[in-house]
């Protein structure tokens, strides 16, 4: 057990040589911020549900370093993202690109919102009509309730 553990720790400690550099963007706050923002958009493939900014997995560490190298070299966001999708596919992007297969994903919320607002309009119009009709004939109970409301006794 113990031996196995030591093996694991030592494996984990032995990072590849180029990983031993300090993070290349650490002294440039602007580049650092850009690097972190990019990392948050990239999904770690091994851990399935973490971005490479968050993950402790070795692949994430490597990719993080790669991103920082690119940022330090002055590569644009698009170039870096292209580098990642060329290798790992769209799966690596937390923000899926707009294409035919993702049209529904991006249009969905707007469609839902419009449908919601439309149905609200319809409902309000209908209810407003029935309010006009029922206004004349308040029942005794409603009358009492209305008085209560006006006096502010009945609150939400």
């Amino acid at each position, binding site marked *: 057990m113990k031996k196995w553990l030591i093996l694991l720790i030592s494996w984990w400690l032995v990072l590849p040589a180029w990983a031993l550099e300090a993070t290349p963007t650490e002294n440039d706050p602007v580049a650092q911020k850009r690097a972190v923002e990019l990392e948050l958009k990239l999904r770690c493939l091994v851990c399935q549900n973490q971005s490479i900014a968050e993950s402790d997995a070795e692949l994430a560490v490597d990719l993080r370093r790669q991103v920082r190298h690119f940022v330090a070299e002055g590569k644009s966001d698009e170039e870096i993202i292209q580098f990642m999708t060329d290798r790992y*596919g769209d799966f690596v992007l*937390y923000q899926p690109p707009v294409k035919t297969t993702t049209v529904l994903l991006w249009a969905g*919320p707007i469609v839902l919102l419009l449908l*919601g607002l439309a149905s609200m309009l319809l409902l309000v119009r209908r209810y407003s009509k029935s309010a006009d009709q029922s206004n004349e004939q308040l029942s005794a109970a409603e009358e009492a309730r209305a008085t209560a409301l006006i006096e502010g006794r009945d609150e939400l």
Partner: protein
Amino acid sequence: MIPEIGQFALVLSLILVLIQGTLPLIGAAKNIPAWMALARRTAQGTFFFLILAYGCLIYSFVVNDFSVLNVANNSNTQLPLAYRIAAAWGSHEGSIMLWVCLLGIWSFAVSVFSRHLPEEMVARVLGVMGLITVGLLLFLLFTSNPFERIFPMPADGRDLNPLLQDPGMVLHPPMLYMGYVGFSVAFSFAVAALLSGKLDATWARWSRPWTLLAWSFLTVGILIGSWWAYYELGWGGWWFWDPVENASLMPWLIGTALIHSLAVTEKRGTFKIWTVLLAIVAFSLSLLGTFLVRSGVLTSVHAFATDPRRGLFILAFLALVIGGSFALFAFRALRVGTPGAFKPVSCETALLGNNILLGVSCGTVLLGTLYPLFLDALNLGKISVGPPYFEKVFVPIMALVVLLMGAGPLIRWKEMDASSLFRKLAIPFGVSFIAALLLAIMLKGFAWTSVVLLTLGFFMAFWILSTLIVRLMQALSGDLAKKLRRQPASFWGMCLAHLGIAVFVIGVTVVKGFEAERDVKMAIGDTVEVGGYTFKLEGLEAVTGANYDATRGTFALIKGEKELRKLYPEKRIYASHGMPMTEASIDSGIFGDRYVSLGEQLSPESWIVRVYYKPFVTWIWGGCILMALGGLLALIDRRYRVKTHHPAPISLMRYTLTGNTVIK
């Protein structure tokens, strides 16, 4: 022996709950009082046996009975006691067991606090809850038996996933599940209303406190989960739009719509169809959340691979419960519904908008969460939908909700003069906007993108606050003392919960706008500055915990010349799993957190260190606490308080007694 008792208790509770789920429902339909009266007794009996079974499971974990497969897989002799108990709900079997158990607790609570309800209603509500319990118990016993034995018995267990070895694990799942399962009460009330065709203001008055309680639990559960992720995952995020989190957010959104819709049903006798629908959806999403996510259809690990029966069973169960109740809804909803009658400018309209917008926001989260599954199922490739997507689509919808939320409490029921509403809202609107703009410019200068975002965030918070103040002034004008007494608790609950949203929005806005982080290589003696604070690495040492080895860094937190305190982040390696775990160390305060965690080790003396300054981050959770307190405050409204105990009619008492003998 003890596991067998637990197993036996589960079987007994299944038998009882089979009675609870059938006879009272038939009794209510055919008007047989004796059968209806069985509901309470069987629910209480089920509760007893479920608690007994759960006790046995926890006992097996506490005494390290590794002959139980579930214990062997999820616990370990080195595991501290609190986590051994928490491990009882750490596994698949254990968490389903917790679910059933909490359902037993809620059923029990309904059976005890329903003295003033008509027998028929109680029979139906408990009957429906019984049917849900039957399905889950069958699932538990046939596919996920928590008491399964293994032979030969291993010398030691495999240990609980180190990520779960945290105080958060002790609190988060029970709280969250209390919320999820709590919605079963509102669900059962809704189904009972559909079955009986009767839904009136008293119905809403009964189901409202149960819904408020469940909602408060869910809010607290989500809050603990978020806070746990914040300090445990080691990089300062507090919400990740992970499918598991989305699964808890969706019932929360619909639950929020439900408590508002219930208010309209109670006060105005309308929105009945909405209320019933929302009650069904809230619980359906809870089921969907617990099972589909936990069981791995949405996330990682092919959990069903080991036993494909589980997946099919769960799907069949969901189809029956959700599909069945939606079918019932489709065919019976018109019977309970009454058309609304209100003018376009009215509180009803505002709350209708609230229902619709929260529904849309929930639909959006659902779409984003399930979209990768849709594409994969259609063989159209694998994609990820994560935070950037959700932030883009969810935040604008919530901005609309907040806008409406400010105005809502100022609008009268049924009808209001548009111009007087406008007059009421103009001042809060103008003041909030100008204050937000000034504050944003003062804090961030004229960089326009950040000014727009900050202004929007501050505006939303100020808008809620200023409209609340106007509402309070309106409620308390005149004789203050008298008015104070006259406002019902639910009014104060509303104020507190809305205030919570404002606090939450401020927290999010400030964190997003002003958080700072550094990610640097440090050796002993090095310093790094972030957000006006200096972190100095003073030492690194090896420490040994109960079941892990760790490297612990000692950092001095310095402001100006003065050392404020020491921080001790750790990188742990758990003996059983061998995976590195980050333990951040946080100096937490009302106006901001200073957060440090160890990244990767570069050489024996140097580490990548992550330091963060997170201003106002605690306000996010503070806001959630206020919301939950608001829910609880509304709950104690005297309208919901159990009226004086009428002694049950003799005839009924006899039926309960016969019910008792039937059980024996």
